[in-house]
């Protein structure tokens, strides 16, 4: 080969060096090929998912929520179209600048916007709702600055609407965005962030029926968050509207009840169809506006609602308990009849306005007394002295036993949540509360006229009334009547479920019913204000002692007397006399439900109702709730 000028050790060395360089180049290339193979072959599908995830985003298409209708088809809740502003997952977005701009344009708290932007950045699915029900002004301001707001999406959505505002709000409940806690339990059912769900009432109870199935659509986005076009063209999954819910509520009667309650600070009306347990009216006053709750309230508005002294969020019909007052006398009377302590037509008591028990004197609400009174007169004129002596003869154990067997002291089982059971103070209860024998048997005198530690909800009062007018059979109260698909096909109907029988004989029940008719229809009855032209009405007035202020007015009622279609209870807080203030409300509700028109302006009442301060006043004075026992045997 000879000497070459290339390389000092000759050609052989040059060839070796050339080979060495080539080996190094090939070896390094192999490293790259291995890495390439790892990314493209081994991890190819993983990166394919990531790349799809990059430019395609899924959105929930919210299913229109089912309607809520009253028993005759009147709409109580529907949906309206609204504009919502949502934030998408966008990597290229400057969150600080976007938060500033959005907070300014939408007049929102900047920290809230920044929070939502962060949520959107880290959320894996869909978009984060920033504003559920934006007004037109807000939307147009955002649209004007669209180019500066990548990944901010305005879309049409459905917002729950209660056409009449406050009507049956405490029965219907309200809807709002799903909370994190709810999401955790509801995610398996297909719920996702930003979903609107029922929070109380039937909206909550029948959430799954009404929600419908959300659809999904997919959009192509570029790196700067611009929405380009649907992927693949068209919606990927149609949203299926929720089912319509028909309630047992009668809108005219409900309206009448709420209009009448509106005259007072607070109160409640519950009406039940005795033969089925269908709840015709469930009113609690005052009430929040469900429309503003549905479109979202600020935290200040919310704490104002929660902190209001009138407790608008409290569903008084099922969550507030009161002493039943004189309406409870029907239980005392029925118990007396059953144990033969009173022979209705022979037993007479001379009421001189007070009753002596041991060293204490218990007063009748009518200071001058009722004179000679039998059981009928005792109920009709609500004579306390008659029931003091009857209660004393029955004793606490017996009276409370009959009370419990009549269904009081426990929840009725109505199909909305939050119901409380009230309280039936049995001897065992007193033992627990005050210690064995640390309480006076004299408590029975107060219990006999429905005062003291005995507590019922307005719903329980109506429920008990329904039992006395349906042959002793009580049906579980319910708001659900039937459910239909959005196209109107019935897919489920409620059947009346007999919950229990009153423990009284037919003759006892018939006597009580007659007495209740007399309360309204007899000239000397305390419930004359409930009279309705053309039909006979039954009822019982009452006043519940309230240690915190003015007494509460009670009235339980049913109509028509011969074939009762409605049984109801009215409670008006701090309104004093039941005959004067609660009975007229019952009259309005009955008229509205039975569709009875006023023939002419109502005649002036012949005389003012006499019933005032019907409650027994413990002669010893002092606090009335729970202190009686301390006076000893």
């Amino acid at each position, binding site marked *: 080969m000879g000497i*070459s*000028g*290339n*390389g*000092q*050790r000759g050609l052989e060395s*040059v*060839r070796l*060096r*050339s*080979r*060495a*360089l*080539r080996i190094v*180049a*090939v070896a*390094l*290339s192999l*490293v*790259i*090929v291995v*890495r*390439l*193979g790892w*990314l*493209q*072959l081994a*991890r*190819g*599908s*993983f*990166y*394919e998912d*990531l*790349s*799809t995830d*990059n*430019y395609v985003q899924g959105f929930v298409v919210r299913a229109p929520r089912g309607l809520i209708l009253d028993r005759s088809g009147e709409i109580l809740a529907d949906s309206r179209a609204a504009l919502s502003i949502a934030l998408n997952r966008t*990597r290229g977005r400057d969150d600080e600048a976007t938060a500033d701009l959005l907070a300014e344009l939408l007049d929102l708290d900047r920290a809230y916007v920044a929070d939502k932007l962060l949520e959107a950045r880290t959320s894996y699915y869909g978009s984060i709702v920033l504003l559920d029900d934006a007004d037109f002004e807000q939307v147009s301001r955002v649209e004007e600055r669209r180019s500066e707001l990548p990944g901010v999406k305005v879309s049409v959505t459905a917002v729950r609407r209660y056409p009449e505002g406050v009507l049956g709000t405490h029965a219907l409940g309200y809807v709002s965005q799903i909370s994190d806690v709810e999401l955790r339990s509801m995610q398996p059912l297909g719920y996702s962030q930003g979903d609107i769900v029922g929070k109380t009432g039937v909206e909550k109870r029948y959430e799954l029926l009404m929600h419908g199935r959300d659809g999904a659509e997919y959009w*192509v*986005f*570029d*790196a*700067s968050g611009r929405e*380009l076009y649907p992927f693949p063209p068209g919606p990927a999954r149609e949203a299926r509207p929720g089912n319509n819910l028909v309630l047992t509520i009668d809108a005219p009667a409900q309206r009448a009840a709420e209009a009448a309650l509106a005259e007072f600070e607070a109160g409640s009306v519950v009406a039940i169809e005795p033969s089925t347990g269908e709840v015709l009216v469930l009113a609690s006053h005052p009430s929040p506006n469900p429309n503003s709750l549905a479109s979202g309230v600020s935290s200040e508005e919310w704490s104002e609602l929660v902190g209001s002294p009138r407790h608008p969020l409290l569903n008084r019909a099922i969550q507030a308990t009161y002493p039943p007052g004189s309406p409870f006398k029907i239980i005392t009377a029925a118990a007396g009849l059953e144990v033969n302590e009173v022979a209705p037509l022979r037993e007479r008591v001379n009421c001189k306005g007070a009753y002596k028990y041991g060293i204490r004197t218990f007063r009748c609400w009518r200071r001058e007394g009722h004179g000679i009174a039998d059981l009928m007169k005792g109920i009709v004129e609500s004579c306390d002295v008659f029931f003091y002596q009857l209660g004393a003869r029955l004793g606490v154990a017996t009276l409370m036993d009959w009370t419990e067997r009549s269904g009081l002291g426990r929840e009725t089982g109505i199909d909305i949540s939050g119901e409380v059971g009230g309280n039936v103070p049995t001897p065992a209860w007193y033992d627990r509360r005050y210690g064995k024998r640390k309480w006076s048997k004299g408590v029975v005198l107060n219990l006999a006229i429905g005062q003291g530690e005995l507590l019922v909800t307005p719903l329980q009062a109506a429920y008990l009334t329904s039992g006395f007018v349906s042959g002793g059979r009580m049906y579980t109260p319910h708001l659900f009547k039937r459910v239909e698909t959005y196209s109107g096909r019935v897919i489920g109907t409620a059947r009346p479920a007999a919950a229990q029988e009153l423990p009284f004989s037919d003759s006892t029940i018939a006597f009580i019913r007659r007495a209740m008719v007399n309360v309204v229809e007899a000239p000397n009855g305390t419930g004359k204000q409930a009279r309705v032209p053309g039909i006979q009405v039954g009822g019982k007035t009452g006043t519940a002692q309230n240690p915190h202020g003015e007494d509460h007015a009670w009235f339980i009622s049913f109509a028509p007397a011969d074939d009762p279609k409605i049984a109801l209870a009215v409670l008006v807080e701090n309104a004093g006399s039941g005959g004067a203030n609660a009975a007229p409300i019952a009259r309005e509700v009955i008229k509205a439900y039975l569709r009875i028109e006023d023939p002419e302006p109502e005649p002036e009442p012949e005389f003012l109702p006499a019933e005032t301060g019907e409650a027994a006043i413990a002669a010893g004075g002092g606090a009335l709730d729970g202190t009686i026992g301390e006076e000893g045997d």
Partner: protein
Amino acid sequence: MDRRQLRDFDLPVLVVTTALVAIGIVMIYSATHGDWAGDLSVVVRKQIIWAALGLAVLTAAMFVSQDTLEGLAPILYGVALSLLIAVLVIGVGKGGERRWFELGPLRLQPSELAKFAVIIVLARYLARRKTRLDRPVHLAVPLLLALVPAALVLREPDLGTSVMFVALLVPMLFWGGARPFLLMLLATPVVSLLLALPWTEGFPVNWVAWAVFMALLAWLLYVSRLFITDKLLVFSTCVFTGIMGPFLWERLADYQRHRILAFLNPEKYRFSTGYQLIQSKIAIGSGSVLGKGFLRGTQKNYAFLPEQHTDFIFSVVAEEFGFVGCLVVMGLLLFLVLRMFKLAGQVRNRFAGLVIVGIASTLFVQSAINIGVTLGLSPVTGMPLPFLSYGGSSLLVTLASIGIVLGMGMRRMEY
């Protein structure tokens, strides 16, 4: 041109070169036709013009004799250094960088020319050396020749390109006869510097690693047959660079530190510098075996992929043509490099052999680093992929070098 020269003309190199340029134009077309870009066809048209110009320069370069080139080397080197200084004064670039001269619609990047100049001048120096490269001090002149332009480019700042000057030095010294042991010693100050950098802030593991390395080096020097002065020189240089490491780190621009940290931990820098790396890996990985198809790359179309038509053009190839497409491009590039290394062993002229090795090494290292960046194997350096990336200066210089190599191949029998 005599018959032998015509016989020695390497047609496959020309064909592969042309093919790579064509693939580059097609990929730039794809990269500039995403939904996001609007009309960027002007970029494609420019690249076509540059390619045409480049092929003309390639042809012309074939006729430059190696003697002429060798004679021109000092002048070319001087011009390149002057331009590198000038660009620091009147150059422009993205966000405070000074990398290009702007001449109307043209952007000229003097560092591309400088790379070529360094190859020529190194080749001339090494070819004319009469003694062997045995001692570390023998490397002083070549090191200086490479490090001066490297330092100037680092000032632009352009870390990636300045690394290239050192990278091409090693194979050329190897070719020039330096013993591999000496080259290894050449690398030790760099290793010392890298180990001393505060990769993980606040944790002394680097100093432990550095101390271990220095101990190994001391042992290695002790058993070697170098002069004692050389041993001391190497060791003290390593101590010096190791101490300087953290200071240099502080001197780096923020974005440069970021790029390096993001390379080491892309997830942590997911929304800033690491974003590019992650998006590039997604583009490449999602290409899978056969790719998403021409113009169908979603990472590219919807602008998730950064610098699509320049530094990340390989990611576009990978996304749209998959593993197979990547193998084709890499195969063509490797073919050129291997062919040139082989040719270097065949030419009789020592200067020509060194030039070919320098050009081939540059081509290889630059391709490897660019592809390595897109794969997350190397920090983001902002280095173009030869032939494929959009950029006039790079394409022109690359094609000119290929022309030089082709010419040297034709004259391979001349001394």
